[in-house]
């Protein structure tokens, strides 16, 4: 399938996303320049990690107004798949494509480490290659990943299954120690109500090669590929993960 990775000034993990999609997964992945408005014929738009515009003012606040974001919003409104990783997640929240907001980590410090997240809803285009409740090991690296939203909104999101990933320990148990940034309800990733926009703080693109700390990130990208290639959500996960890149 065809992927587009947006390059904002200050994007950092854009090249890593392109490497993961193009070189590791062998898919067609191209960079999209923030000043262009044309998304071409991409089937999934990735907003990568980094510090767009230095993350000055608020993370993602300025990037949200980049020319290409108009097209991204249109693309999303038309049902196109949009994945926001870390800074991309922050941009999606600022652009109101996702509910809630991301604030300074509870520790007030930047955190770079591998964490565990539990798949809370495997029946979405972003998680269908994983099992419900499956625990993935992914790296995080952010200073502002504390997810917040009004309580009633959170409750509604949970009911609709919009919380796709939650921080847990390696055995999938929720506990405060396993919450690296103090996110409400240990939320690591959320989708919009129509499940075509997904944002997460962990970096799947940095978990696609065994030599570099695991391949669990492939599950996210494979899910998207599967759903685009019209395979039923939840279709044989085993097959998906056995065809490791």
């Amino acid at each position: 399938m065809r992927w587009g990775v947006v390059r904002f000034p200050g994007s950092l993990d854009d090249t890593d996303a392109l490497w993961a999609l193009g070189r590791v997964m062998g898919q067609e992945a191209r960079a999209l320049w923030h000043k262009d408005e044309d998304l071409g014929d991409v089937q999934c738009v990735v907003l990568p990690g980094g510090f767009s515009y230095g993350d000055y003012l608020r993370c993602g606040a300025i990037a949200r107004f980049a020319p290409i974001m108009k097209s991204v919003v249109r693309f999303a409104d038309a049902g196109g798949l949009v994945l926001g990783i870390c800074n991309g997640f922050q941009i999606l929240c600022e652009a109101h494509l996702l509910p809630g907001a991301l604030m300074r980590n509870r520790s007030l410090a930047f955190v770079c480490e591998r964490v565990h997240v539990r798949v809370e809803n495997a029946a979405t285009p972003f998680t269908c290659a994983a099992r419900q409740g499956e625990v993935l090991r992914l790296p995080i690296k952010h200073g502002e990943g504390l997810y917040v939203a009004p309580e009633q909104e959170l409750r509604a999101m949970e009911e609709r299954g919009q919380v796709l990933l939650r921080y847990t320990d390696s055995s999938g148990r929720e506990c405060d120690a396993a919450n690296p940034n103090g996110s409400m309800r240990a939320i690591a990733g959320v989708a919009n109500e129509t499940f075509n926009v997904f944002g997460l703080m962990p970096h799947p693109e940095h978990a696609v090669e065994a030599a570099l700390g695991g391949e669990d990130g492939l599950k996210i990208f494979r899910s998207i590929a599967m759903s685009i290639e019209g395979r039923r959500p939840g279709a044989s996960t085993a097959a998906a993960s056995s065809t490791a890149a």
Partner: protein
Amino acid sequence: MTVHRNAEMPIALPDEPAVGLEQARAHGLTEDEYRAIERALARTPTFTELGVFSVMWSEHCSYKSSRRHLRMMPNAGPRVVGGPGENAGALEVGDGWVAVFKIESHNHPSFVEPYQGAATGVGGILRDIFTMGARPIASMDSLKFGAFDHPRTRYLLGGVVAGIGGYGNCVGVPTVAGETMFDAAYNGNILVNAFCLGLARRDELQSARARGVGNPVIYVGSATGRDGIHGASLLASAEFDAASETKRPTVQVGDPFTEKLLIEACLEAMRSGAIVAIQDMGAAGLTSSSSEMAARGQLGIELDLDRVPLRETGLTPYEILLSESQERMLLVAERGREADLAAIFARWDLHAMVIGRVTDDRRWRVRWRGQLVADIPVEALADHAPIYDRPARPPKRCESRGASQLTVSPAQALRRLLDSPNVGSKRWVYRQYDSIVLGNTVAGPGGDAAVLRIKDSRRALALKVDSNPRACAIDPYVGAAATVVEAARNVACVGARPVGLTNCLNYGNPERPEIMWQFVRGVEGIRDAALALETPVVSGNVSFYNETEGRAIPPTPAIAMLGVLEDLSRRVSHHFKRAGDAVVALRTAPARLAGSECAAMFGIEGGELAALDLRRERALIDGLVAAADRGLIKSAHDAGEGGLAVTLAECCFSPDGALGVEIERMPDGDEAEVFFGEGASTVVISADPDRMEELRGLFGGIEFIPIGRVIDAPRLRIANTGSANTIDEDVRELRQIHEQAISRRLAPHG
């Protein structure tokens, strides 16, 4: 731009102070230096010119006290490309790639303002690397703080670490290794040394040598403000005292976002072929970058200050020329390519401004509001700074008594040492650094050396920075040589061949003979070790005047070593892998307590450093590389701070924490020294018992001591023959202590 008329003389500006010897002294120049300036100009300098000379001839920019000694260091070798004179040396690392790397100090700025001081230190070293045409791919930091219980230490530690992370994380270069030490000797003068490694294709290396009379000189990056005027240059060239606190208005603030744009834009511009020469505006900003590029090309440069982008109004020529505002680059372009370059920089929202031209008369000429304000022979600024052969004399040493005894049991000592911030895990520090961006980090912080893959190649690079001030304080020569050897050994422990190094020499006031002696001995130690290991010195940096109220820091040469791993699949890591594996201690000489963490912790005084035999050190490193290459070792870990017992414990800290070790017999010698001694090179390896003889054969000339085996219970058992004192501890408990050594001391109300 107006044409130069020979008759024209630089004019003194209204309300500028009169220039004379007093004014020169106020600028930190000596009388001889001032007279030399008068001779170079054949007249009295203008105030602006005096300021320019004072920074260019400062210790920081001119290396006037160190230059003649630095020449001793070996900088040649089969891998070396890109010669001296450029901003940093480069090494061939295979597959057509060259590695460019350098380490630099930002000690004083970080003491004054820890966050911004450390941040701008990272920014500065990054520019030194990409100005060479290399893409920065990894950073390291070497940090020295005061005693943990000193009132300022927590504040400085927090600020410096946040600053290094704040800049490095935002600019997208992973911080993959470093070192952190706490010692009362740094209470009044911390050390913050920042390292950067870049990769370039061999033919992409970029020059900093001006060419082509009439070529435009172009300014790109942040606008110029009053930042750091006489900052780096003077701060780093005069002893630090309370007065420096008043230099506050000159604090430089880093802008990593603009730096990121500069990296991408400059690399793209270089590939366009429109750039003749490029140099970052570091210390002495516009002045040093322009005059040095001209000097290398044996040409002249004429600048028009009215075209320099300014952040504030009312800057004088003096301020514009001496400003150390960050994130600025100066380049010489091919005439006629101005528009192409402007387009590339505009694409990155950067404004490229032509501010001058290359001339043929070897003069550095500056205009402001149409008037000539400086007119100086280029060589006088860049090359003819005074060079001093300062007197060096060893200090009178108090007779070193034989080492006193360790009074606590080995088990107690082990726990105390694991809890020391110098021995315990540095995770609290490095988890604040993005160590994985760019997708090359195979082994980040936490092991002996970091390992970075080279994409589309079997090869990988290994990196580590080390220093050993306690050994240097006892013997500045042996200490410095031992530091080179330690960095190389850390690199060899992951299976990589050490190929070259860079150094940051942190010392006190060179005008004091005993400090100068420490410095010279240090350089000699680095030279001899580098020769023995065939690791050329490709770049370096000197930081003098690390003193507060007359108290100097211990000699602290920081050595950053680059290694090449021919086959990534041969990489070795430091923890035990399989129960039943044999555990071997490799040793070049018996360890000693002198200069060890154990001695510092338990107040054990005197004693001699372990003997250092560079031939044996070379043999150990060669053996480790060969053994890794043949896949003979399962794990290798260098005995660093804390000694052999601590190292054995660390080898048990495997991810699943299921393994332990059973030691039947420790190497011979005094128990405290064998368990906790340092200095001599000791490496703990584990290997398949059936391959022992094969292994032994690779380590001719050094001690190869089988001491025990890996067990599948998380216990550390050390039964020392002929001694009742044995260690039998729960590995998970020890790991807990080790993990929290720093974090528990920083816990709120802790």
